[in-house]
């Protein structure tokens, strides 16, 4: 898939909760070809940050020509993003990387934690009503279900404090969910510790599992070798930005 470099227009940019924002960009060429799990690398020209910032595409609407990013405020770059207004321009490089291996017909379980849930929205939309398991620290962090509802068969929620859904971590809820549903494939994105737990259970149950990784990136297109790792089972050197960010679980854990 050809990588594009476009000046996208901010259509909307607003806080979902104070710490997590949603930006909709008009970038029709990218909206047309991006696949779930792929990401874009963005930069405000004339901004203070130097490197581009990678963000998963949380949704894409080829008809409207828009892509959606959902981002957590972390540092300078995301603060700069949050300060942007509609009609401003932002430079977008994408689609980048290799996304999820979509399995139409599979009964898929998507497991997400934190902003790792973002790419699962886009994935859920492309699948046939998958089951979702999402985790957050508090009730506030479970706003994601609102984005997922249109596409999900069921949404399981866990919170660390038990304020919404089941109390505890996502991984703890997994065995019950696998018992309740006949899952034939798992895609997961979130903290490494969470994905590792998911991958272990999936391996034990013999369910194919893919995980979406995050690494510090400089180039996002496979030239700087900032983001590489050795595949656990193959020993192969992978670039997260180009060969991933989505990998078979057995190559990561």
């Amino acid at each position, binding site marked *: 898939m*050809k*990588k*594009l*470099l476009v000046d996208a227009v901010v259509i909307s940019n607003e806080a979902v909760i104070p710490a997590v924002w949603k930006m909709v960009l008009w970038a029709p060429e990218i909206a047309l070809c991006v696949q779930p799990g792929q990401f874009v690398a963005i*930069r405000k020209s004339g901004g203070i*940050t*130097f*490197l*581009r910032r990678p963000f998963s595409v949380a949704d894409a609407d080829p008809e409207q020509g828009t892509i959606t990013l959902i981002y957590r405020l972390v540092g300078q770059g995301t603060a700069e993003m949050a300060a942007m207004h509609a009609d401003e321009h932002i430079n977008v*490089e994408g689609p980048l990387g290799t996304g999820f291996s979509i399995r139409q017909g599979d009964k898929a379980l998507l497991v997400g934690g934190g902003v790792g849930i973002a790419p699962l929205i886009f994935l859920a939309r492309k699948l046939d009503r998958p089951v979702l398991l999402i985790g957050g620290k508090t009730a506030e962090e479970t706003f994601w279900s609102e984005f997922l509802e249109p596409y999900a068969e069921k949404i399981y929620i866990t919170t660390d404090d038990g304020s919404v859904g089941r109390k505890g971590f996502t991984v703890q809820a997994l065995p019950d969910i696998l018992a309740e549903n006949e899952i034939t494939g798992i895609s997961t994105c979130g903290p490494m510790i969470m994905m590792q737990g998911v991958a272990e259970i999936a391996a034990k149950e013999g369910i194919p599992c893919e995980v979406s990784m995050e690494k*510090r*990136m*400089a*180039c*996002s*297109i*496979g*030239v*700087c*070798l*900032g*983001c*590489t790792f*050795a595949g656990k089972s193959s020993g192969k*050197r992978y670039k997260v930005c180009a060969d991933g960010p989505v990998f078979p679980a057995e190559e990561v854990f």
Partner: protein
Amino acid sequence: MDKKRMALEFAGIKMKTPVMGASGTFGFGLEYADFMDINGIGAIISKGITPKPRPGNAGVRVAETPAGMLNSIGLENPGVEAFKTTILPKIKTIDTPLIVNISAGSAEEYGELAAELDVDGVAALEVNISCPNVREGGIVFGTKPEAAASVTRNVKLHTSKPVIVKLSPNVTDITCMAKAVEDAGADAISLINTITGMAIDIESWQPLLGNITGGLSGPAIKPVALRMVWQTARAVKVPVLGLGGISCWQDAVEFLLAGASTVAVGAYNFVNPRAVEEIAEGIDAYLARKGISQVSELVGQIKV
């Protein structure tokens, strides 16, 4: 772009423009094919190739800094064998000179590596004696004139290709290094490699980079690179490839005026993957405006 105005020969390498992609920031060139016509650029300088495959350094390897970045990749590469069998055949399809950047652990190894790369499809060798991110090889050769000279001699002995020696800026006197490698037979000199720097995570109290220190590059270092290129171009007779912090055609023109015959873009490729092409276009338009018919006429024209 006026092809005649921009074409030049650098250390015997015929180039369509004086602007290249710098080692370690340009992959093997093909990665940029979506963004520009890679058949129209000056040259592709490959990621550093070593005798054996290297996984590079552990931990975080890249970090942003004000107007720049730190990297501590540690020369991850598949080794010369895999380079020749799987990568080189693909790049041969590109009608742009490929300069192979090489690193090794001893002067002898540098020579052997050069011999292995004395093959079709390689336009020249860029000898990296300046990688700050590896223990053996790299930086020791880049800070001792005799060591640098010995590497240069060994490479020259084992190759028929033009040899460009890449200097480290982490030295007291760059001209002393430049003269040493010139005397040892270098056909050209490229500079600068990255300046050693570091960053600390104030929450964990750990260095941000797995390797503790890393190499600083990007616009932040441009004034230092330009100064060293100017000093070097005055001190040696061989042509100079100038790089360090170039982000726009204006920067490139400064390097040419300072005495660089050609330039390369490093970290800024990550910011603007079209930089190499756009900078060449900008230089061409500048030359047209100034009524200069050949880019080489600009080289070293600084009025001091």
